[in-house]
């Protein structure tokens, strides 16, 4: 398997230019930025809370969709050819306490953002969207209720064989998945693959409205997964574990007998220091410099800025932010910051 070559712009990097850049988050946007900056001769330090780079390409999206060897090979090129240093299992300190987002329990070390800003010429934040949106149902805290990421993540992460990571046990159980996006589909497929006795996908609108498209739903049904449209969950039942879910469907209210509920209804961006960085202004396009936060030399890119989207959007955002960062440092070095005219707006 060939590499996902983040160093696609040139074969050999330019000679070292003496500048150091820290990239926080080694997902698609962070890796694309590392390839761009590493190729220009920057010394890049990439930090990630997970035990291995790749972000959701490695830990969220199932390997039958994105082969992890291809990502790993791309990371090796960054390391060996561009000299990018990867600091994995390292969380850069954030506004939220540790152990609040999926995957935080992997971090063995914590570093403050201030430290990084002091030690580097610039910092690029590409931390993505890792907090699951909650359905707000009574009973959603019961054991047996998972978010899409909570459920999918350990399946991929289990090969790192850590005692605190266990694949959710769904064998022989009845599973309900709430939502109809791609991660809902992935969760339903994974549950089915792990030997669930019965899988139902519950969606409040019709199959034609489903973000994943009707083709994916047809495929689910071919596998014997039940598709329940125009059905909204009302309450998750049970005392100390999930015993059922009360739903309201086209034929009125009913109770689904399920043992596991997975809600995959979207993620929320999780930037460190969102307020201080002035991310809201960047989203509106009100910036002094493309992708730069309200702290000088601190840039931001990817899903953390624009909300959960697609690998391609993240890659593009990472590349553009990296280019903007390099321009900023180059012009600032010559006291020519005023020449920035911001023709390129941040896309959402």
């Amino acid at each position: 398997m060939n590499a996902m070559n983040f160093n696609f712009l040139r074969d050999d990097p330019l000679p070292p230019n003496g500048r150091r850049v820290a990239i926080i988050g080694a997902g698609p946007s962070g890796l694309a930025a590392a390839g761009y900056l590493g190729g220009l001769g920057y010394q890049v330090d990439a930090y990630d809370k997970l035990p291995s780079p790749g972000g959701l390409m490695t830990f969220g999206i199932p390997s039958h969709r994105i082969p992890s060897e291809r990502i790993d090979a791309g990371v090796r090129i960054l390391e060996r050819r561009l000299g990018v240093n990867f600091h994995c299992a390292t969380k850069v300190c954030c506004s939220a306490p540790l152990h609040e987002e999926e995957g935080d329990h992997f971090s063995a070390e914590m570093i403050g953002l201030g430290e990084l800003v002091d030690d580097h010429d610039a910092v690029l934040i590409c931390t993505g969207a890792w907090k699951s949106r909650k359905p707000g149902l009574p009973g959603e805290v019961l054991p047996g209720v998972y978010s899409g990421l909570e459920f999918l993540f350990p399946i991929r992460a289990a090969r790192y064989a850590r005692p605190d990571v266990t694949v959710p046990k769904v064998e022989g159980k009845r599973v309900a998945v709430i939502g109809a996006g791609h991660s809902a589909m992935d969760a339903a497929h994974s549950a089915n693959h792990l030997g669930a006795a019965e899988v139902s996908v519950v969606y409040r609108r019709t199959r034609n409205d489903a973000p994943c498209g009707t083709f994916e739903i047809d495929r689910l049904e071919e596998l014997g997964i039940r598709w329940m449209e125009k059905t909204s969950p009302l309450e998750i039942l049970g005392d100390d574990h999930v015993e059922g879910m009360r739903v309201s469907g086209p034929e009125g209210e009913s109770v689904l007998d399920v043992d596991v509920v997975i809600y995959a209804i979207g993620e929320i961006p999780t930037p460190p220091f969102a307020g201080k960085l002035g991310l809201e202004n960047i989203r509106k396009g009100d910036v002094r410099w493309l992708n730069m936060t309200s702290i000088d030399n601190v840039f931001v890119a990817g899903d953390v800025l624009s909300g959960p989207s697609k690998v391609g959007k993240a890659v593009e955002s990472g590349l553009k932010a990296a280019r903007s960062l390099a321009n900023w440092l180059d012009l600032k070095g010559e006291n020519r910051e005023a020449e920035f005219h911001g023709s390129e707006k941040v896309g959402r």
Partner: protein
Amino acid sequence: MDGKTLYVDYSRCIGCETCEAVCGFIHDTPRIHMTRTRDGLMVPLYCRHCEDAPCAKSCKKGALVRDRDGALVLQPMLCRGCETRQCILACPFGALFLTRTGVAVRKCDLCAGRRDIGLGPACVEMCPCGAVMHVERDTVPELCTEESEEALKRVIAHIRPAVKRPG
């Protein structure tokens, strides 16, 4: 015919849009274009650099020519100012795109500038799934699988829907 072409295995494509994003980053506007089929599949439309290319045959200006590597490239100076845009209608794969600039259309040139310095097409390098390939034209049939043919059929049904006309 010798030379390499682009091949997308639609059964491996997850519709992540990385190809389009990277293409747009290095060229002014992307020349590989993501589209959503009616059944919700995201797929990229791309140029096959056909051996017997309908776009080249339809172009009255002779602006679509074969380069040394067998890629079918657009000569902007010849295309500029064309108003017929017959090539767009002629392409069976929806791989030529209208522009709003003086050069009427844009299309994939297999990253001509990159090939000049020994690099391959950027979309191939960056596809997370390895679904986009830069391969010798005559090896394409070997790369096709049952799944990829099935997926291709769905894409073609989307680009060229069978129209039932009354009577």
